[in-house]
């Protein structure tokens, strides 16, 4: 299977501390992958590197069919290439309505002039309404997103991520602060998304990872410790030592 994203031999250090140490990782075009690991294993730094926020000291990040390098591209350019990211803490534009948030995220030309003359077409509005009903915010479209509850903001952010129609979703702890029912809904959305695109989920909650039913990559001290099914990695003695055992 050809890979959508290939990270190979990437290292980055902050003030001498090696946050990522010769990390290699690859994911296919329609695949779900969970990343687990103890605090400080480099999960967030890994996402920062892929999205262009952090420049690695060494290594390669290769993207797509044409094998272009994501290194040296701006964050915005990488996002336009099709990498979408959901942050751990919901970051929506609180001063704007749910509708405005979703329209901003909706896949469309991103240049200043195109955006200036953009007016939502009926197709766009229908798409936004579909998304809003999927994330349970159809009634709240005209509300300022700052008024939403914490859980609703999480949903809005997931909705914005889907609206971008990225080819790779990087999702940081999507289920944090959600009720069991909401978690199931989140699982369903992510599993559905992974049928057509690549999804990388960083999660602490083992129960959630188990429900995703996908390959798991265990990070430790900035490198891959083990990879395979959840049962496979949890049987690995090294993994038990550094993560599960403690």
């Amino acid at each position, binding site marked *: 299977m050809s890979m959508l994203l290939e990270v190979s031999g990437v290292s980055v250090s902050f003030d001498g501390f090696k946050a990522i140490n010769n990390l290699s990782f690859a994911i296919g075009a329609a695949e779900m992958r969970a990343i687990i690991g103890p605090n400080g294993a480099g999960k967030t730094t890994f996402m920062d590197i892929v999205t262009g926020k952090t420049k690695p000291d060494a290594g390669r990040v290769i993207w797509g069919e044409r094998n272009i390098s994501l290194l040296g591209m701006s964050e915005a350019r990488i996002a336009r290439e099709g990498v979408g990211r959901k942050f751990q803490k919901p970051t929506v534009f609180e001063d704007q309505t749910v509708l405005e948030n979703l329209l901003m995220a909706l896949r469309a030309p991103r240049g200043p002039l195109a955006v200036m003359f953009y007016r939502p077409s009926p197709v766009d509005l229908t798409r936004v309404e579909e998304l809003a009903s999927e994330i349970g915010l159809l009634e709240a479209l005209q509300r300022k997103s700052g008024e939403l509850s*914490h859980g609703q903001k999480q949903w809005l952010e997931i909705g914005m991520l889907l609206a971008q129609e990225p080819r790779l979703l990087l999702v940081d702890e999507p289920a944090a602060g959600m009720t069991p029912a909401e978690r199931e809904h989140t699982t369903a959305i992510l599993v559905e998304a992974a049928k057509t695109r690549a999804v990388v989920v960083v999660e602490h909650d083992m129960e959630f990872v188990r429900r995703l039913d996908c390959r798991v990559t265990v990070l430790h001290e900035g490198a891959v410790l083990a990879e395979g099914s959840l049962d496979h990695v949890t049987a690995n003695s090294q993994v038990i030592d550094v993560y599960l055992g403690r």
Partner: protein
Amino acid sequence: MSDTFLKRNPSTLVFLAVLALFVLGVTLLADGAGAGVISTSFVKTLGKTLCLALVALAMDLVWGYTGILSLGHFAFFGLGGYMIGMWLMYARTQAIVVSSLSEAPIPATESEIVDAIGNQIFGVVGSSEFPLVWMFADSLLMQLVLVVAVPGLLALVFGWLAFRSRVTGVYLSILTQAMTLGLALYLFQNDSGLRGNNGLSGLQNLPGLDHVPQATLSIWFFWASGLALALGYLFAAWIVSGKFGSVLRGIRDNEARVRFLGYSVEGYKLFIFTVTAIIAGIAGALYYPQAGIINPAEIAPVASIYLAVWVAIGGRGRLYGAVIGAVFVSLVSSWFTGGQAPDVNLGFYTLKWVDWWLIVLGLSFVLVTLFAPRGIGGLVDLWSDRRQPDRHGADLGPGVGALREKEAEQ
């Protein structure tokens, strides 16, 4: 756009109606065209105020909406004034020189006329040569192009350098202030080619229109300023009403998030910085013919700080707030500093408003920032539905948007 656009933005319609009524009223009462209740000099003050409102609108776009606290927009305003001032001064001096030389026994040659104009304009700084920057001064069209091009290009180059390096927040403010100060200091020099601290003067006289009295000219400029403000307001309301405005406010509130949505934050900042610099330049080009004189002191950093104060007092992040702030503060300011406000005798000390006005202004800026961050424009919220919903009860969670007790029970 117009029909539905105005329907969706009723405040724009209200603003345009108020502005039209104001322009009509002043015209009817003015010396030049109507009843003569309003003096010519006051018509000029009002016209200038409309120009200040326009530059405040630009400041609101760049600061209130995009979150870039630029302390350089009054420099762009001044540059616009300088560009139109060069033509006004050149053309008027040319008319005077030609008429005085025509009485000479031998007709003057072209180069003699140009030399004489140079002598007239630059004699005050001990020179008579035309510097390179006056290259197009004899062409109204070229100078009008420069009104737009010079502030626009300066903003484009400066903004490209600053935004590309991801300079934000207070550092960017300091950088823009340094640019403003540098420009002012440069223009203060006699060999800057723009008459040093003398500046350009006599701008109130339009070349070739000597027969038109100032009373009439003042009304023309008043109309032009009103029209420019109306168009500027429409343009600003149009760009902030759609997705472009969403992106701008997103950049203000969380620019990293906007980047991860795929928008080039630097490109948007550069775009709005440049566009607002051009608006500021146009406002300046309308302002200084009414003021009659421009000198480098007008560009000093404090002028750009005033601009920020107007927008803050009027209410940033809403267009009419910027206009209200600029009009209110600049009119009150000229009342206090014009010596019209009566001194207050405290017995032991006489409070002279000319000296104390700045203290009052500074104090009100601090108070507005602390206690009424929405400014004067925030008063509108009192009877519109823009107020924050009162959700009763205490937060259930730590976040600002967390459910509250009463909501959770429903």
